């Protein structure tokens, strides 16, 4: 035991030292960026549709965010955590019915046509609102986008829409695509979805299926002198064990999104020339959640859900499954969200005796074989960690007399089983928190979502009080009142446990130390990398 703690501590020390060493150059400007070079990074998935305006997911952003830009990007230092991209300023009206964006001048698309407010209006009304997975929620009341001139776009809403929400949604939801290529076509089948044309610092060059994507420098980028790199190559490396080897062999220079398995980080952090960075994913926090099917009569009982919460040793999960690269959760908003998080919620410390007592109280005594009842447990297959947590949860439940049978599925079958067929009792899911509970968090517990919507409440849970808070917050313009409502929301979720939040984690980037300006914003891996440069 003692040697394990020691090695973890030393690992954390090295990590923070490395963090400091990567952060220092940018702070002190001690090193001048040198242009040129080719950055080779590992890509673990290979999306065909590279249109982030339609598919706002990290796999798409990882590549497409260098080509297609949003109105604003997340930032560590700027006001409200946003730095301007295609918009230079944004202002909400006091009634919550309109938002005015001033757009950047002198921006051209990669095909030479000028970027104007018409492109923003087209993207918003024809793609974000009707087609985008997340935009459907945030922009559902968007009625019109007025374009009084080429560089002003005024978003008009039919019902008051909180400006705070629109602001928080700018980085992930507002990728602008060229109107002249999409207008009058079948947007979902447009060839520009697989060979995107944008305004970003890099132009899409080619995609060789199964091998690589290639992006090249956009010499006419609006931010003069940028980007520094000549080329970015995404080498398709679906095998996670291969990424570490490729980094050591200097075949690639960067592996983001924890492409190097957590278990390998301790070892690779000691390899000279390689740095392990856990910063740069603050705005993409993943949450480890136990999804519950409330149609099962045992699980509809709050005492049973409380017992399950008490049966899970969050510290063990963080220490053993995430090897320390995660935090135990208290509720549906992660602790790294400075705007909304509150720790003033009921907590469920690890306590097997209490869990057993609650189950006895609920009227499910242990039978002669030590079992109270059986459950079907479906761990999501997307991450090693979700699968491992499934293995752990089965054992944790066995300790309190609940017999959980694991059912393994591939990604498509898992989504169908849980979100369409409801063929689960408990499931392990990794939803993403995107900087505002209204974007993708409230949908996990709100009632009334039709069957088949992935990553939503499909457990049959319905709580009128919680629903009322969620819909009130969705139309509350005043920011402090809205924040307060989301604190109530956290409290209600932690009290009634429609689902159980276990842990929250960000990803890890592993890079050669020759790559500079790594992880300098909270969405770094999915930002535009215009200031990234390579030491020759």
């Amino acid at each position, binding site marked *: 035991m003692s040697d394990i703690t020691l090695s973890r501590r030393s690992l954390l020390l090295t990590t923070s030292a490395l963090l400091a060493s990567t952060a220092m150059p940018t702070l002190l400007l001690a090193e001048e960026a040198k242009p040129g070079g080719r950055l080779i990074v590992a890509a673990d998935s290979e999306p065909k549709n590279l249109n982030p305006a339609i598919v706002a997911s990290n796999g798409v952003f990882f590549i497409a965010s260098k080509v297609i830009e949003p109105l604003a990007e997340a930032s560590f230092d700027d006001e409200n955590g946003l730095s301007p991209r295609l918009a230079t300023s944004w202002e909400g009206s006091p009634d919550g019915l309109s938002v005015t964006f001033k757009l950047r001048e002198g921006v051209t698309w990669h095909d030479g046509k000028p970027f104007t407010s018409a492109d923003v209006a087209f993207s918003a009304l024809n793609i974000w609102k009707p087609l985008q997975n997340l935009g459907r929620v945030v922009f559902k009341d968007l009625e019109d986008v007025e374009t009084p001139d080429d560089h002003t776009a005024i978003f008009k809403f039919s019902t008051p829409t909180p400006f705070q929400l629109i602001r928080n949604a700018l980085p992930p939801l507002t990728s602008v695509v060229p109107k002249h290529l999409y207008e009058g076509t079948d947007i979902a089948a447009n060839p520009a979805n697989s060979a995107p044309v944008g305004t970003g610092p890099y132009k899409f060059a080619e995609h060789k299926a199964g091998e690589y994507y290639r992006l090249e420098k956009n010499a006419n980028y609006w931010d003069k002198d940028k980007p520094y790199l000549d080329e970015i190559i995404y080498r398709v490396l679906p095998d996670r064990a291969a990424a570490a080897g490729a980094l050591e062999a200097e075949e690639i220079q960067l592996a983001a999104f924890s492409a190097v398995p957590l278990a*390998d980080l301790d070892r690779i952090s000691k390899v000279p020339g390689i740095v392990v960075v856990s910063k740069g994913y603050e705005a993409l926090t993943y949450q480890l959640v136990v999804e519950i099917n409330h149609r099962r009569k045992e699980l509809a009982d709050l005492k049973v859900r409380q017992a399950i919460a008490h049966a899970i040793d969050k510290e063990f999960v963080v220490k*053993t*499954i995430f090897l320390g690269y995660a935090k135990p959760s208290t509720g549906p908003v992660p602790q790294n969200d400075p705007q909304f998080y509150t720790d003033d919620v009921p907590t469920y410390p690890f306590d097997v005796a209490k869990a057993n007592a609650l189950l006895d109280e609920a009227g499910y005594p242990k039978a002669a074989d030590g079992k109270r009842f059986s459950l079907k447990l479906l761990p999501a297959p997307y991450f090693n960690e979700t699968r*491992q947590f499934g293995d752990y949860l089965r*054992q944790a439940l066995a300790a309190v007399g609940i017999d959980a049978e694991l059912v393994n*599925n591939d990604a498509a079958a898992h989504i169908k089983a849980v979100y369409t067929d409801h063929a689960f009792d408990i499931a392990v899911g990794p939803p993403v928190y995107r900087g505002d509970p209204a974007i993708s968090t409230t949908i996990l517990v709100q009632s009334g979502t039709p069957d088949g919507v992935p990553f939503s409440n499909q457990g049959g849970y319905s709580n009128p009080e919680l629903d009322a808070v969620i819909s009130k917050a969705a139309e509350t313009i005043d920011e402090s009142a809205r924040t307060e409502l989301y604190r109530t929301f956290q409290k209600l979720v932690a009290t009634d446990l429609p689902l159980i939040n276990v842990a929250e984690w960000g990803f890890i980037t592993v890079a050669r130390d020759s790559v500079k300006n790594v992880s300098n914003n909270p969405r770094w891996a999915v930002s535009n990398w215009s200031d990234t440069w390579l030491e020759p």
Partner: protein
Amino acid sequence: MPVLRRFLGTAEGIAGGAILLAIAITAVLASVLFPGDPLAIVAEPMLQPFQHQDAILGTDRLGRDVLAELVHGARTSLLVGLAAAFAAIAVGATVGTIAGFAGGLVDEALMRVTEAFQTVPGFLLALALVSVVGPSLPVVVTAIAASAWTQPARIARAEVLSIRERDYVASARAIGMHPAEIAFREVLPNALPPVLTLASVIVANAILIEAALSFLGLGDPNIVTWGGMIAEGRVVLRGAPYLSIFPGLALVATVLGVYLTGEGVVEALASGRSR
């Protein structure tokens, strides 16, 4: 038991038999040696092997006893191997006997079906079946048997073709026995021995296919399998190779044991015939 004596007279027979016997005893006694769920978390995670009394072979990433997993995994492997071989030979011998004995259109039809199965690589067929139906032990056994029955079918048919022309079959026909009765009571028992020599190959193959399926995450997640252990250990291969090496060695020993036993049987039968 002259065959058994001859079997034990061969070096392969002795070695293979000893290995298999040891593994079989381990598998049978698994619940006595390590009672309870072998997947239970019993100690600190990632204990190195040969350093702790409670977990002699160390623990895995969640703190499960590797030795307990290994012992219970033997049970799964042998069970899958034997069940799949039994099912494959039963189906194969039946199909082969019917085809060979009936002849004509039935023969043509059954053999074309057999060939159709043979054109698909066995592992891919199993993979497809398990991913469609869902991973559980019976499905895995069925999937392996579905890809392994063709060889017994062809050999059984070849044997039957020669046996059905023998005099005792003709006499059985003459006394008016039902053709099905002749096929399964007179012909099949005599066609079986050469088919049975395939058993060792099928068992060994089945164990490997099951391990490969588990390695790919298509095994039954509620029981321990060696393939599943290797897959889990692979993530930490550089830091804790023992997690993959131990189940790997167990797999090698079992397959080798089955194979050597098979060789011993074949040799014993052959020397019996030549005498």
